[in-house]
């Protein structure tokens, strides 16, 4: 083979690789599914009155425990049937999205920036903030999460904002931990070292060089965590520690439905499907964001990779 042919072969290959654009999010079917599901859920949560056919609180004792429309005894007036007080299940499921999404989104929106800030400081500066953050993370890892949340709710009392408080307080540590470990790795990279050698200040290095490289994986982490918080919220509501009745919440509806499983399985079944749909949608959104924004991200704990095994390294 002549050298010329080799160049010819190598040439276009390098060029085409350099020209390969970032994979478009809109070619990613999982991401699209997640995006559509989450957008629909958000719209429903923002404007439930636009889609719900009935008042979710209106009781109609004469029409209690009506089965879904397609079963015998069902009526198109109540597509998914009615509960033990004759309330329309469909409308309650639609309105119930508000609690799950509000708690999930607010917890992530509060915990995210706090975790980001503390993770940046802990990773870049080290010192007292670092040891404090890491001790809190150790502590957090030692608590069975739902038990801790239950204990906190028991003390604060139930309510939407109290759940947001509990979830933000417990979740920022995980975000800080992830951000910190990325910062530790980034700090040693050439472009950061270079900026430092050129005399850039710490704030400038963090803001211009480190932050942009951390934000993507944080967004991915937050989207996975949103699914976890929505599930945890439904568990707390199921245990009667969530938003007090009669406000419809998916976990609360499940708990009411549990009392009537002998006669009316539909009360518990449909809020469960709603939780699953939203959680799967959020996870797909997270998967898609990861593939596009941060291909190296690994949502599992770094210990699972066998890299950092406690004290074993030293």
């Amino acid at each position, binding site marked *: 083979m002549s050298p010329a042919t080799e160049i010819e072969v190598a040439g276009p290959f390098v060029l085409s690789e350099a020209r390969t654009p970032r994979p478009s999010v809109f070619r990613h079917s999982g991401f699209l599914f997640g995006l559509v599901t989450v957008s629909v859920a958000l719209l429903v949560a923002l404007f439930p009155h636009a889609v719900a056919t009935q008042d979710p609180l209106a009781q109609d004792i004469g029409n209690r425990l009506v089965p879904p429309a397609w079963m015998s005894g069902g009526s198109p007036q109540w597509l998914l049937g009615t509960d033990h007080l004759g309330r329309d299940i469909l409308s309650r499921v639609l309105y119930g999205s508000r609690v799950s999404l509000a708690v999930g989104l607010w917890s992530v929106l509060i915990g995210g920036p706090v975790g980001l800030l503390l993770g940046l400081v802990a990773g870049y500066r080290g010192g007292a903030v670092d040891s404090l953050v890491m001790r809190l993370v150790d502590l957090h890892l030692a608590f069975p999460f739902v038990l801790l949340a239950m204990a906190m*709710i028991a003390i604060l009392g139930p309510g939407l904002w109290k759940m947001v408080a509990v979830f933000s307080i417990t979740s920022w540590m995980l975000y800080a931990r992830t951000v910190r470990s990325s910062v530790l790795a980034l700090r040693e990279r050439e472009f950061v070292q270079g900026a430092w050698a050129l005399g850039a200040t710490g704030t400038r290095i963090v803001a211009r060089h480190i932050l942009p490289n951390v934000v993507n994986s944080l967004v991915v982490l937050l989207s996975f965590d949103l699914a976890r918080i929505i599930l945890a919220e439904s568990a707390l509501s199921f245990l009667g520690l969530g938003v007090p009745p009669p406000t419809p919440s998916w976990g609360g509806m499940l708990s009411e439905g549990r009392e009537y499983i002998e006669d009316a399985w539909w009360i518990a079944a449909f809020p469960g499907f709603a939780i699953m749909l939203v959680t799967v949608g959020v996870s797909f959104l997270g998967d898609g964001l990861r593939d596009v924004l941060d291909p190296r991200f690994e949502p599992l704990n770094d210990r699972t990779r066998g890299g950092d095994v406690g004290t074993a390294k030293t």
Partner: protein
Amino acid sequence: MRNVYLRQIVQAAIVLLNVSLVVFVLVRIVPGDPARLMLGMEASEDAVQAARVQFGFDRPLYVQYAQFVGGALRGDLGQSVRFRRPVGDLLRESFPATLELALAATVIALILAVPAGIYAAVHRDGVLDRLLMAGALIGQAMPIFWLGIMLITLFSVKLGWLPTSGRGSLAQLIMPSVTLSTYVMALLARLTRSNMLDVLREQYVRTARAKGLRETVIVHKHALMSAALPIVTVLGLQVGALLSGAVVTETVFNWPGIGTLALRAIQQRDYPVVQGVVLVSAALFVLINGMVDLAYRYLDPRVRLT
């Protein structure tokens, strides 16, 4: 080597001391008088005063904390307000039920998830791989208490095959343990698959193939051995999730474990019991993860050498 053990024990002790501090503070930041909250509004002022003295709320906070830690070290976690019995006794009665449930769930998860993950990795992108992974995704997205309720609807109400609740017989263990195992099962299946995929690309697997070993030997002896390590660690880390899951699972099936105990204690503001449950659960978690680290050292020659 001994140094390593010592350090691990010290670390565990520090974490537990912090846990006890958090639990202690948590119970004491309750707005209002804890003694009054525990006894209720109807109780007489004398009774409240007596409770204040009995539970030590009248003493300075640091004395209360020292007494709490000192008592816990001697195995004395105080008195339950509602049951008028030592918290330690209540925990001793409830823990076996939760352990039984968690153990059964772990065994079910391991038996089903590891082979599923191996199969999915070996037959990557096959129909069954896609089905298994879709199932795992749903398993992780599903509220397990909902699964529990649906299982009851199907197997107890419609088919009448299994009892709805309670503990004692094997039939009563089936649905709660399957319910609790779902999340861990889904996680393990995905993890086994991704680890097997990584390991099957390794040089030594290629060498084994080049030597002409049978594929089953390669997969089960060479690949699985090293893919198994992270599974052990993840199982250790899932103890917290298992305990949390046990709380809701026990509620669904009226299973008399610590979850049921904790929920009742929280509803009745029985703070000494809440304290005890959280402290003992955290201790269990730290203990199991310590053992996982040691197991790791034993299983992984690379770690053992260092």
